[in-house]
């Protein structure tokens, strides 16, 4: 199973500028246009070689779309292109004020969950969502200004918030 050498990065493959800001509808229409050309369904009656190449390219198109569609994955990928590793698994050092805020949210979530207080969980979820929105805005500014160290730190923080949101969603749906 050899994967072809894909010289283009995800942005180039989808014909988009290499930048954090992405026009969601343009991303979607380009992904669909690309998939329309490379999808294995277009080559189901083709030779074995064509079918294999189609599968590899369609896989690649799906990966590019999945990465660029999600802001956090997109930032991580963009930083990788610039030679920066966000270090989410290894670097868990966080500024004290961010950690304090995290602990407060986690306690509030645990209390609301124990009391089965769906309204409180909803409020908390909205508050975290707002904080995440602000942080994404900061991330965009940092990346536009080529401030990649700050970008890495923001990606790590955002990953924290994302995990917290997932936990609250799980609790709300339980």
């Amino acid at each position, binding site marked *: 199973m050899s994967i072809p050498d894909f010289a283009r990065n995800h942005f180039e493959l989808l014909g988009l500028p290499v930048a954090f800001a992405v026009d969601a509808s343009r991303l979607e229409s380009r992904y*669909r246009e690309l998939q329309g050309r490379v999808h*294995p*369904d277009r080559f189901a009656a083709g030779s074995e*070689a064509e079918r294999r190449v189609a599968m590899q390219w369609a*896989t690649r198109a*799906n990966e590019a*779309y999945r990465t660029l569609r999600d802001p956090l994955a997109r930032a991580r990928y963009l930083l990788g292109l610039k030679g920066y590793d966000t270090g989410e698994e290894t670097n868990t050092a966080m500024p004290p004020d961010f950690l304090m805020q995290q602990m407060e949210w986690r306690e509030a979530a645990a209390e609301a969950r124990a009391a089965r207080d769906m309204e409180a969980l909803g409020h908390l979820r909205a508050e975290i969502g707002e904080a995440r929105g602000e942080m994404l805005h900061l991330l965009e500014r940092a990346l536009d200004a080529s401030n990649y160290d700050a970008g890495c730190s923001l990606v790590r923080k955002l990953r924290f918030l994302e995990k917290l949101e997932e936990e609250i969603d799980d609790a709300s749906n339980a």
Partner: protein
Amino acid sequence: MALLQISEPGESPDPHRRRIAVGIDLGTTHSLVATVKSGVSEVIPDERGRALLPSVVRYLADGRTVVGYEAREAQADDPADTIVSVKRFMGRGVADVAKYGALPYRFVDAPGMVAIETQAGRRSPVQVSAEILKVLRDRAERALGGELFGAVVTVPAYFDDSQRQATKDAARLAGLNVLRLLNEPTAAAIAYGLDHASEGTFAIFDLGGGTFDISILRLTRGVFEVLSTNGDSALGGDDFDQAIASHWRKAQGLADAGGRETRRLLAAAREVKERLSSAERADVHVTLSYGQKLHLQMGRDEFEHLTAGLVQKTLGPTRKALRDAKLDPARIDGVVLVGGATRMPHLQRAVHDFFGKPPLKDLDPDQVVALGAAIQANVLAGNRAPGDDWLLLDVIPLSLGLETMGGLVERVIPRNSTIPVARAQEFTTFKDGQTAMAIHVVQGERELVSDCRSLARFELRGIPPMVAGAARIQVTFQVDADGLLSVSAREKTTGVESSIVVKPSYGLSDDEVARMLQEGFSHAGEDRDARALAEQRVEAASLLAAIGAALAKDADLLPPGERSAIDAAIGTLERARAGSDHRAIKSAIEALNRETDRFAARRMDRAIAGALAGRRVDEIGR
């Protein structure tokens, strides 16, 4: 006046003649075959005009096999040799089938998949399913007057990898060229969406005889995009029959019903269930094998009360699918009902209440899957009409992962990833000098390996001895457009690469398929070499046509040396095809495939460059 040409049956003066392609719904209780004729998808009936083929196979002592209505009639008299609902056994082990309750079969624990001992010998569910598929293939070839180019075979969206692989093996065994395995709710969405020219977000609620699927799809500008899917591959209309039968058994004090009694009660239960969809009350007379006559009856209220739990069981997966699609029920524009079991009024009420809107049911819920599969088959075979440039983007239903230390699952590809998809994960050794690593591939959503389905185990050997933690073993999962997985592993650090491509262990090897084919043909008295020759010739013709079309369009991409190598390979294949040695044709096909490998890659590069160029024009327009 020009004379009209009349061609021989099965031949056509037009080299670009339509290829005969069909869609097959291989169902738990019924199976169907459909095709597109003059732009319209139609079910192909049998010679007596019946669209449905009961998915029942009976093995007789003299080696004959009976499929369909005749077999179904015999189920109560010969329950052990008459296989009903074989779909529930596809890709399943003995422990799985035990969960279905009392069944009249002699199950045998075979490696990877359960087998059934019949008076004609041991049969795997793959072979039983192949018998059903063969009947449908013959039906289609007779009705359409020619050999099939290929088929799209549907599977429940929630089928795991082993169930999908088993289905594909059955189709191969039936001599079908599988153009694609297509998820049943997605097939229904194609039939429905194209018929109604719909746009929006739809839920396809598909309760068949033995499986339940819920898929959430978005239809926009010619794209069918599956957002999420969920379900229960062991929940279906059969369970409602079981509920009625077990109620009667208790009420009549039939504590230990044998195989025949079980079949008779289930058949009666099924009849009563179907009648209760329109009647308030239904009754049936059953004569047990030892002469006892029973008058059994049931009211609709009682039936609904008895099976309320089964209806509720469909709503859990429905909630999960919506959650994965990040939608609430109010955001769904339409709910489409698929599968005969959705005719039950209390089920329709539950769906209506859950989504807050009446479900759509204007297409026959028994036929809609086959109709959609036929439309897809027609397009995949290359019979694309103008306006047929819609695209289908489907997902895998269940996460794929690997076993790590402590029996935990490391997820490699999450559920609801758009296919085809590939993902790699790195692992390392935990002992100094370790030269081999056991790789265990699992599927499911749980944290513990023991709670997931084991798909395959293999060993990566030949890792150079290193200190613990120094090796970097990359395991790559690739899921193709059929939703089928292949796994490869290699060690990266030392430049020494060991690599293995596994086909999961439950699947049949090519040799096994060849052996089963041989057995099948010796029974039928067919000449297997003649069959193999015919198949290889068809394959050679389609490959030559594909290469010919590619050369006509993009020959300028070939340097002279490569072109002459391809021309030589074409010549070899053409000569082999004119001969009668199927092995020579097979090896010439393989050689031509090899020679056109780089050409295919370059053609795809050109297509992508075309896409990029097209965009620039589009940008100027904005």
